[in-house]
């Protein structure tokens, strides 16, 4: 049975807001009986783009994550609904019936992702409906995929088994929510949000005392006593290790191209740019907090 899935590559999301504006364009002032009642003119974001910033100083990275109804197969909202007010279609899309769901605030409160909006005026819970009403008219994909300028959002209709293959092959993950709800929205590169990085800059004084960046220095990282890999500083003397746990002890062993060596260690609590690590003339240990 062919069902709908959505993938979002957060490494490609520019935070332009096109998707967020498009959901509003589709639903503000429009009533789609059986699918969704109109969205209120302001203050409701059935799809919202959230920003995550890692780092400090001049080494940063930013990840934008569009969040919307995940159309979960094991949906807590469906479980919480009375009288079949929320249900799953055979193509995987979740619908909250705009008439039957009246007064059922618990449907909104049941969502572990916080993506069900409560419409106070109409007294109904509302979600991004995957543009089911348009797909039923023959549109080939939901509007959010159409308006994304970077191709971060992709909608796929296929067998769940086929999609599971993609999840494995592309290392897709879902939003962490503390419960397993079998969502249909998968993310690529979410590690940019869930993992930490450790980075810095290697510099040293040259013969005349002028400070220069150490280009091409080898930097080896150990996390909690175990080596996790090495990299080489770039043209600005910078290095960056990613995919690290949020809390750990680290040790960096630096070897410059002109034969200087130094190590730095400390405790990692979230992503960190250590800034400029100055390599002295002689080999010495340095403690970095």
């Amino acid at each position, binding site marked *: 049975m062919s069902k709908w899935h959505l993938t979002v590559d957060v490494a490609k999301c520019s935070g332009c*807001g096109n998707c967020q504006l498009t959901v509003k364009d589709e639903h503000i002032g429009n009533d789609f009986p059986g699918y969704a009642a109109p969205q209120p003119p302001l203050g409701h974001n059935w799809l919202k783009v959230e920003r995550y910033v890692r780092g400090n100083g001049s080494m*940063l990275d930013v990840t934008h994550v569009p969040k919307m109804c995940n159309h979960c197969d094991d949906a807590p909202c469906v479980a919480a609904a009375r009288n079949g007010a929320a249900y799953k279609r055979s193509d995987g899309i979740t619908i909250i019936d705009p008439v039957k769901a009246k007064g059922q605030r618990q449907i909104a409160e049941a969502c572990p992702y916080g993506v069900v909006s409560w419409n106070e005026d109409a007294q109904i819970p509302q979600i991004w409906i995957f543009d089911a009403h348009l797909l039923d008219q023959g549109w080939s994909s939901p509007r959010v995929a159409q308006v994304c300028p970077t191709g971060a959002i992709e909608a796929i209709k296929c067998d769940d088994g086929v999609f599971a293959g993609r999840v494995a092959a592309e290392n897709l993950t879902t939003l962490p929510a503390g419960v397993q709800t079998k969502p249909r929205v998968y993310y690529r590169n979410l590690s940019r949000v869930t993992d930490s990085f450790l980075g810095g800059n290697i510099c040293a004084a040259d013969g005349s005392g002028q400070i220069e960046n150490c280009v091409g220095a080898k930097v080896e990282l150990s996390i909690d006593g175990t080596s996790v890999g090495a990299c080489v500083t770039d043209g600005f003397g910078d290095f960056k290790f990613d995919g690290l746990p949020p809390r750990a002890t680290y040790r960096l062993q630096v070897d410059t191209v002109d034969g200087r060596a130094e190590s730095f260690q400390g405790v990692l609590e979230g992503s960190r740019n250590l800034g400029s690590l100055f390599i002295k003339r002689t080999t010495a240990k340095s403690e970095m907090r």
Partner: protein
Amino acid sequence: MMKRTLHTLALTALLRALPGIIKIAARRDKRVRDHLVSSDCVVQIRLRDGSCARHYIFRRGSITARSGTHKSPDVDMVFKTAAVALSMMRPDPDYAVVIDALKNFKVTAGGHDKQTVWFGELMNKVAAAGWKAGTPMKDGSMRYTALTNGGPIFVYVAGGKILRTTPIDLDSTDAPSWTIRARGRTFTPRRQAVPSPHALSLKSLVYSEKRILTPLKRVDFDPHGARNPQNRGISRYEPIGWDEALDIVCGEIRRMKRQHGPGAIAVFNPAHHQWGNVNYWLSALLRFGNLIGTTRMAFSPISWEGWYWGAMHHFGNSIRLGSPGFYGTVEDCLENAEMIVFWSSDPESTSGVYAGAEATQRRQWAQSLGIEFVHIDPHYNKTAQLFGGKWIPIKPGTDPALALAIMHQWIIDGTYDKDYVERRTDGFSEWRDYLLGVTDGVAKTPEWQEAETGVPAKDVRSLARAWSKRRTYLGAGGAGAGFGGACRSATGAQWARCMVQMLAMQGWGKPGVNFGNLQFGTPMDLNFYFPGYADGGISGDVINTASVMHNYNRMPHLATINPVKQQIQRQHFPEAIINGKCTGYPWDGMSLESQFPSYEYPLPGHSPVHMLYRYGASSLGTVANSARMIEAYRHPSLEFVVNQSIWNENEVGFADVVLPSCTALERWDICEWSNSSGYIVHNQNQLNHRMVLMQNPCIEPLGESRSDYRIFADILTRLGLGAMYTEGGCDELTWCKRIFDSSDLPKVVSWKDFLRKGYHVIPPDPDPMKVPVEMRWFSEGRKKDTPEPSPLPSQYIDDFGSGLPTQSSKFEFVPNSLKRHEARDPRRPALNRYIPSWEGPNSGTEFADFPLQLVTSHPPYTFHTYNDGKRSTTNDLEDHRMLVGGYYYWVLRMNPADAAARKLTHRDVVKVFNGRAAVLCAVDVSPLVVQGTVKAYESCAEYDPIQTPEGVVDRGGCLNLLTPSRSISSTADGIAPNSCLVDVRRWEFQGATERVAM
């Protein structure tokens, strides 16, 4: 004799058939029916020798025809000969013939202007009867097309209401896309007109509760009694009818001329508004102003400041206002560049200009090819956020110091292009001596600039080495070749000059060495003609638009001339009114020297301004030190202010009479995406696909709003100028057809097909016809071969096409043009010395009082003020406005260290203030802004002054109330909003909401 008799017979037959023709058209088309019932009049058509005469009595939609003359016809059309009559009275006349007949008085129209226009419009609607537009959809809705500031869209309409707007996906019948081959890979763009956020909030703007639905009059304004100018911005409004509104406006126009004389009426418009070649300000508004005689609001090259007042002197491109060109650079960059330095360049926010998000995919290609990105900006901006790369944070306004140090390093390392400098440039030894400290004893080393910029010396050396070692593209400014950012500050000219000097030192024009950030320079047919908005539309203004270049002869129409030569520059308008005079330096791109002479207001012998016709309402968010505008509005010398706008926002509330205009989705128009023409020749070269579009009236104008064209026609008709303005009753659809016919489109698509589909994609040229690369010819010592209609022939020193339009014909490190001028302006030396900003960290006590540098740049989610505020969906984008305590505040971005020092946390409401004003914002605390700088966007549409215990404060977010009105230097008349010192404090009075009564 025979021919004359045949013509007369044919004419007689036509005149007999006319009522029938009209009735058939009326049956076919509601537009004709509606028009027919809208007026009763008698229209007479005759030949001058009296040999043929017929008149028509239009009454309640019926037509009665009589032969012979009527004793008092409302319209009396007199043709010299039957041949002339027949050539004009056709459904699709040759307008060259029509205009000739009008200009040479081969036809005259007596009687009443209003009915003449009515009859002409009727005949145009008859000719258009049955024209079909729009595509019916399966669900019963109709799909139309429109062009927005963020790109083209489809508009779906059902039941007279806009259902939705979507991007346009190209279909299989549209022209094929190009492919670039670079580094062994092929790149073909997505087949969609890719929109930016400016395109997608449009429905919410059209239906905004801030739409002005009726004409309005200030309750305490009486044109025959007390006018109370001191209450502008405070008084309430009452709705009035169009007749009363237009009576007041026309009465004031007449009174201004009679009581004060020429120059008393000023017309003031925004830089950019809705698209449409008919309704654009350079078209309908200019034609209107010329037929009245007005003091023009002259623009300054805003967004080009440092390029126009500085950079152009080194290399030319005055017609591009000093910004570099871009031909062929997308392919050259993908094929040859190894690094792109984005210097004050954030195209993911600014979309080039008008280009939607088309270039984002091209930057993704560059990233996939391993081309490295470096970002120099106080803000880790949206482009840096998306693509990553090395961020070099810098103190605003100090960029020239960094550039000087990089150039110094190239000299020390010997890593500049010595051969290029030797052969293609002039004055390098003087420049080198300045960099090395020979001239002033200060070597411009990386260590020298460190205290000034905050950039570590070691990083300057690393950047200089990477830059010279690799083939590097310089994306300077948002467009990659100009615009915004660092060029609009006290050091803006110094910075832009450094940018071109740096490229000249690295071999500008050689493979992989050019200006750009992939925003401009796609493969495209640039020879196909369609007019851009600066080509003047229907204005007929051959002096103040580029009309004379193409449009004026390709679309025969009546010229209009404004005999009033008095002008006031936009940023000097407040002092012109308050002080009664001002001077400035006008925008003139004809030569390097055109910017040197000053102008004065009032012009000798002219009346000062006493009436302001304000078209649009954007000043308070976009003019530097905009509080001066408020003072000007209340000045007693300004006797009458009329504002023509779509929404009730910003400065609309300062008018005496308000005229409601409609959005681009409520009227006919035609235009090409991103085609500005004029000073931005080939602006559409940012796009992946060239597209011309019809703009359909998707819905009826809301309330009593009317199109701009209609409003101007209605005013002028009351002054007896309606037939002249409308050229005998052309409505907007007829003008669209005339514009279509003037272009190359009829060669490739029929009007009916174009109208029905709503757009046409112009195919790219095949590969062998590639556009040559910008400055490649210059680097190779050949003649210019890019398709750019500049410089002017006389500006070449040697043969036509050889060299640059500088005195030496080379790139000049120390420009001769500035040498001829520098004695008059010590802050504008020919030698591009670093002179620190006059409002910045070197400003002594001012800096001690206001220790934060505010930078405001073009916003990502709204095109200028268009999409902001008005309770549009844009409000709900948290990066644009934050909802705190029930109010949508403008966002100010601040570094955590600066926030901690002020005990501020993320989302606090803060007061941003200096000696000029105070504005409330919501603070976004993050490391994305360097310490010492606060970053926001400009172009706030909402001016919301509230009375508070700390005085009047703007809650809407118009940060331009804080920026200085001082120009870059005394003769470099560019604005410098990015040299602005402020401080920020938590706002304690969130309960205060009372709108101001000063």
